[in-house]
């Protein structure tokens, strides 16, 4: 009898334990977001720092390709991008951008349910999620919407407020889209920690202010740009002295260098690898002999042309640094001040930068306001060459219509010439076909 009772005991055990028995997870590395640690781990995924839209950067006048190199690129969309072809883009930028937004939304969807005593970490995580969502959406706007100001009625982008896949995809107005970005960043700036921690892949308050300044620049809201640039610089304003750097190195700048406030890079572009991506020669000529950037940013190719080696992430691998760095913020502060007629502030800011960039720089001579703005824009052009898609963003700003600062971009391939005139609709790339098909949102005009 005893023998069989063990059998009965076993079956009872199974019966009771059955539900619990099947609750165990099948893969130890799986988890359901249930703690702050899980949410932090989602945000710590490198993907969120590495895959920002590149289409804008590929379309700038910072560089050129030889016909042979252009033909050697196997990705058709990359080739078409180079000549501002009307055909649609690779899905990559849209996918990457909205993937980062999705990650941030998963965190924001769950953060409310987390019970914790560590309020500081909780706030930091929430702020980080808002920051990433804003950054991704802003960079998407630079590629897929026409340039315009805050409050514009033009078409913006789908604004996704939750990771719920059942939410419909609809295009918000451009003004509404920018307002959303700004709101996220305002919230983020209240939540993010002040001091830079160990990791520059995690945003800080300074990064949120810096990004706000960048967003306001793109929308030509110069008073706000000046305001937030100043806020950012109050938190962190260190500039490297280029006179101290070694230009013989293959990559003179290192990953997480001292000017980096927040680290991020674009996705990879085959047209931007240093072996084929050649710096515009007119642009190169604008760096005079005393300008340390001439040798720190550029390497000499065998054919006499120049390649770019000045990435702030220490590599020349076809991706570009596009995070928040002090030099960009100083330039924003200077330009925004100049545009508002605050010459003294503008001069103070730009001198702060120039003394770290030129050999034997002693200060600016007295110049007119117009000249000052011209000088600041020239410095911006030279300092932020190949800095993510900042040049593309600037081109959009200057060429949104046939204004004073506008000009026509040109590409030469063999016997063919391609133009991108001011106000051209191609300043907004086409949204991937599959997105239009699946969601039914309206396509950008051609």
């Amino acid at each position, binding site marked *: 009898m005893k023998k069989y009772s063990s059998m009965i005991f076993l079956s009872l055990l199974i019966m009771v334990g059955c539900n619990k028995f099947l609750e165990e997870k099948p893969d130890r590395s799986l988890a359901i977001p249930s703690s702050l640690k899980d949410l932090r781990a989602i945000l710590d995924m490198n993907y969120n720092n590495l895959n920002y839209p590149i289409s804008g950067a590929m379309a700038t006048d910072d560089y050129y390709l030889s016909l042979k190199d252009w033909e050697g690129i196997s990705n058709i969309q990359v080739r078409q991008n180079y000549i501002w072809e009307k055909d649609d883009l690779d899905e990559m930028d849209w*996918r990457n951008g909205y993937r980062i937004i999705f990650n941030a939304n998963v965190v924001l969807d769950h953060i409310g349910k987390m019970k914790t005593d560590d309020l500081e970490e909780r706030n930091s995580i929430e702020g980080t999620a808002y920051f990433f969502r804003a950054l991704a959406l802003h960079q998407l706007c630079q590629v897929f919407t026409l340039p315009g100001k805050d409050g514009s009625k033009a078409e913006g982008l789908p604004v996704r407020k939750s990771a719920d896949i059942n939410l419909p995809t609809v295009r918000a107005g451009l003004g509404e889209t920018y307002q959303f970005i700004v709101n996220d960043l305002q919230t983020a700036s209240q939540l993010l920690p002040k001091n830079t921690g160990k990791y520059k892949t995690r945003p800080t308050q300074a990064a949120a202010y810096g990004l706000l300044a960048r967003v306001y620049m793109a929308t030509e809201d110069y008073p706000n740009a000046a305001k937030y640039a100043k806020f950012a610089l109050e938190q962190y304003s260190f500039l490297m002295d280029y006179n101290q750097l070694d230009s013989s190195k293959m990559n003179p700048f290192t990953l997480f260098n001292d000017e980096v406030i927040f680290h991020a890079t674009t996705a990879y572009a085959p047209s931007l690898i240093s072996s084929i991506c050649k710096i515009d020669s007119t642009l190169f000529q604008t760096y005079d002999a005393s300008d340390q950037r001439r040798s720190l940013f550029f390497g000499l190719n065998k054919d006499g042309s120049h390649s770019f080696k000045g990435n702030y992430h220490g590599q020349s691998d076809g991706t570009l640094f596009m995070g928040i760095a002090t030099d960009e913020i100083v330039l924003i502060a200077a330009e925004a001040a100049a545009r508002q007629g605050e010459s003294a502030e503008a001069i103070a800011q730009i001198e702060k930068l120039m003394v770290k960039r030129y050999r034997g720089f002693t200060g600016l001579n007295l110049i007119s306001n117009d000249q000052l703005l011209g000088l600041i824009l020239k410095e911006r052009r030279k300092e932020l060459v190949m800095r993510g898609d900042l040049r593309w963003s600037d081109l959009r700003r200057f060429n949104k219509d046939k204004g004073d600062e506008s000009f026509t971009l040109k590409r030469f391939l063999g016997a063919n010439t391609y133009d991108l005139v001011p106000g051209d609709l191609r300043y907004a790339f086409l949204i991937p076909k599959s997105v239009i098909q699946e969601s039914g949102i309206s396509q950008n005009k051609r």
Partner: protein
Amino acid sequence: MNKSVLFISCIVWLLNGLNVFAQQKTVKGTVSDGINNRPIGAVTLRFLPDGDLQISDSLGRFNLSKRPMDTLLSVNHVGYESVVLRVVNEADLPIKLFPISNRLEEVLISTGYQSIPKERATGSFEFIDNKLFNRQVSTDVISRLDGIASSVLFDKRKSSNQVFSVRGLSTLTETNAVDRPLVVLDNFPYEGDLNLINPNDIENVVVLKDAAASSIWGARAGNGVLVITTKKSKYGQPLKVSFNSNLTTAAKPDLYDQQTLSSEDFIKIERDLFDKKFYDADLNNNRNRPVISPVVELLALARSNGIDKETLERKLTDLGRQDVRKDMLKYMYRNPLNRQYALNLSSGAESFNYVIGLGLDKNAGPSVGNKYDRVTLRNKLNFKVNRRMTAGIAVYYTYSSNKTNAVSDISPGGNKRAIYPYAQLADAAGKHLAIEKGIRLNYADTAGGGRLLDWLYRPLDEVGFADNNTKEKSLMLNFNIGYQWLNWLKSEIRYQYETAETDSRKHYGLETYYTRDLINRYTQVLPTGVVYNLPKGGILDRGEGNMSAHSVRLQLNVDKGFYADKLKVTAIAGTEVRQKETTQSDSRLYGYDDDLLTTMLVDLTKRYPIYGGLGGDALIPGILSPLSGYLDRYVSVFGNANLGIASRYNISFSARKDMSNLFGVSSNNKGRPLWSVGSSWDITREKFWKFKSIDMLKLRATYGLSGNVNNSLSAQTTLRYFPASLGSLTDLPYAVVGNPPNPELRWEKVAMLNLGLDFALFSNRISGSFEYYRKKSSDLLSLMPADITIGVPSLTRNVATLANKGIDLTLNALVINNAFKWQTNLLFSINKNRVERYLQRPRSLASYVGGGATISPIEGQPAYNVISYRWAGLDPQNGDPIAYLNGVPSETYDQILRTNDWADLVIHGSATPQSFGSVRNTFSYKRLSLSFNITGRFGYYFRRNSIDYYALYYSWLSHTDYNNRWQKPGDELHTDVPSADYPVNTQRGTVYSNSSVLVEKGEHIRLQDINLSYQLTSKINVFFYVNNLGILWAANKLGRDPDFYNTLPNPKTYSIGIKADL
């Protein structure tokens, strides 16, 4: 679910309380011959252990007195097999005895849950008996089934010879072995490495093909089930000793069969490219120092006047005479030798029996340096605890060691995927020579001015240096108790514990190229001295895998006849709990000293400069994903019943519910009830049946559901954690958000209808079966298009449907039955599958183009498809390939590669055979027996490789089609090989490589093997076996083996062996 478990427990409980009292009574009966039904006289009958002896009369009648404790009746007669019967209440007992050796073997088919006589089965079973199973010679179990089991198709596209399917594909998921059949060893799913099972321990193999046969395995049976049964002993069996040994060898692989260019041709191409300055960038590259072939080095030297023209020509002529294959065959390959020894002991007494199996395999593979050893020990012990209770215990232990010290790939690496054909591995004196590897040889030779480690790669040295070994240990413990409550009711508890440990070790000693190269790269030679950022010592990579599985099963068996066995009920019901846990950990140690077992520490977080600027500052490589752990749990209830009516009608039912720990699904949704029904009718047993020459004609029909399990998906938002890895921006672990929530997630469902006809004619001289089936897999997990704005590129949902239909035909004929015997066995199967529903569509139809190596579903087409760009010949002007764009011939390659027009593409058809079969003929005369197997595979296509100029110039991959290339106008009339272009247009190459002109029919017939055996004495048999004999006929007109078109065919193997039964 809980209720059913409770129910079963209750029954067990109730039965326990039953007391069966019986009074002494008499048992009458007759004994007759099982074959001709004649009564047998003078049969000895006795109740065990101490009943009175009785002898049957001349009419076979007997009359026994039976005490209450008498239950086991032993029946013996000279010339007949002894039987022991269980007698409880029967008053009238018909006993059948079968003549020894003449007995028509009653085939018992094991499903893993029960053994059922074949004639009562309604389902579709493929039975491979011991004799057929042992016709082939192999180290493993699975590969023996190739060509001898109907509906079992081996996938020759895979490098492993153990990938097979039963009745086609049931899922669209290729990962996590979701598409593999379930393998059952004795009673439980086998979770370990299939190579660890010794074929000499196997009694028979059963393939469960249709729903009635396999649905008892429920959610894992969708791809078919293979039940492997090990050898058993019997009670009351005298000691049997059998010994089996064989030796197998083979030719060296036929490297000359590779369709590569000769050294002379290759040098000619290199000279041509050199003149076009193709190599100048590499020659001038002072950064990465890419490899440069010896010919190009010589040409460069000559250009800079380092050597005169005459010397150059002489040296090039010498190189042109070299052939690396000669050295490879001489030094890197050998005739393999596989030795197999097996010893089996089995014996049984009244109350216990045992089997002991010992096996030893020692394989020295065809590549010098590779060695595989396996030791198996199997012990199975059964005993009768008392009249009602039996117990069994089995232990199966396997140890294997796999040394992989051969140099398998001597290509230089990077973008160079083959070595130049004139490479020399050793000089005339046998001294090992260096070849290009990783970085340019003439740089590596002098770099560091003697202050670095030797940086040259001598492949033949590496064989001696390599120290790689993977050891596997597997232990299975099986324990069971059976209790006979009533003569028709039995309960069983089975428990199995399986554990396996894999310990892999890769020791790269300091003398190995791998270690020397890595250390050199992380070395800095400074004026102040040499800095080693990587310790000067060996590198040890270790991997440790652990698997453990527990299975418990409670089962009730009912076997009862009513109305004088006019109605027979055989049923089982039970519950089962299983758990399988696997863990894996990998590690790397630097500065390892194998003598002292010392290691040194390195800083994996720091970036170090790379010697000579060969690369940017880099981290020291560590292990990417050092730890993983998986846990699968199942709880199942099952039941199965077979009603036999009037020995000619059979009706079967089965039902099963499985639940598993699918992640994030509430318990209610974790399971899925699966069931089957079936029936059979043996017409020849009807009274109206008059055709004497037809011995058996049985119709069968079944329908049922089984499933496929994929526990890797989840219903909720899940995170997958990853450790900080090489190349990460930070040292932080991170998590990736998986698929978005899918509350509808469920297991895949496979519904199958099977209609069968079994027949036997002319006193069983001809027998066979014909089966037709339809199989529909629905709720298949597959991608469906998603709006990428939601944040994920695609969604995986239960949305696809796949349909299979087919025929299995088996025909056995004893054509001549004299002293000379001729037996023919024919197997033929047709299986066609169609994707019926699949939602994901690519951006352009051109992305379907391929050789069908992976599943890319198109509705209305087979799952594995060969699809090409439509070929339109060569351009007569310049030999450029022409394909179609929007329906018209075109050379706009970039557009063709993005075409969205079916008119531009050709769908050839399935990449896997849609019909296949074999004919096995056995001739025997007295003691000699000769058998050979001819197999055929039909209805499929494959793509042959051809010349790819980009691969030729940049990767050194050549192809003899180069010699047939278009060279001048007019050539297009007799060749399809495009002209050599320079600079290479890769898109042009891609269009040609994937064009319809390179697709061939795979249909072929081959002579698979021959077995010649001789019965030396009544107990000793010797045999000679040859495998992989070759192609008899092939549809492609190029004279090559379609299953190995782009690789090397398996060499013929030769075995001799001896089997002794003592």
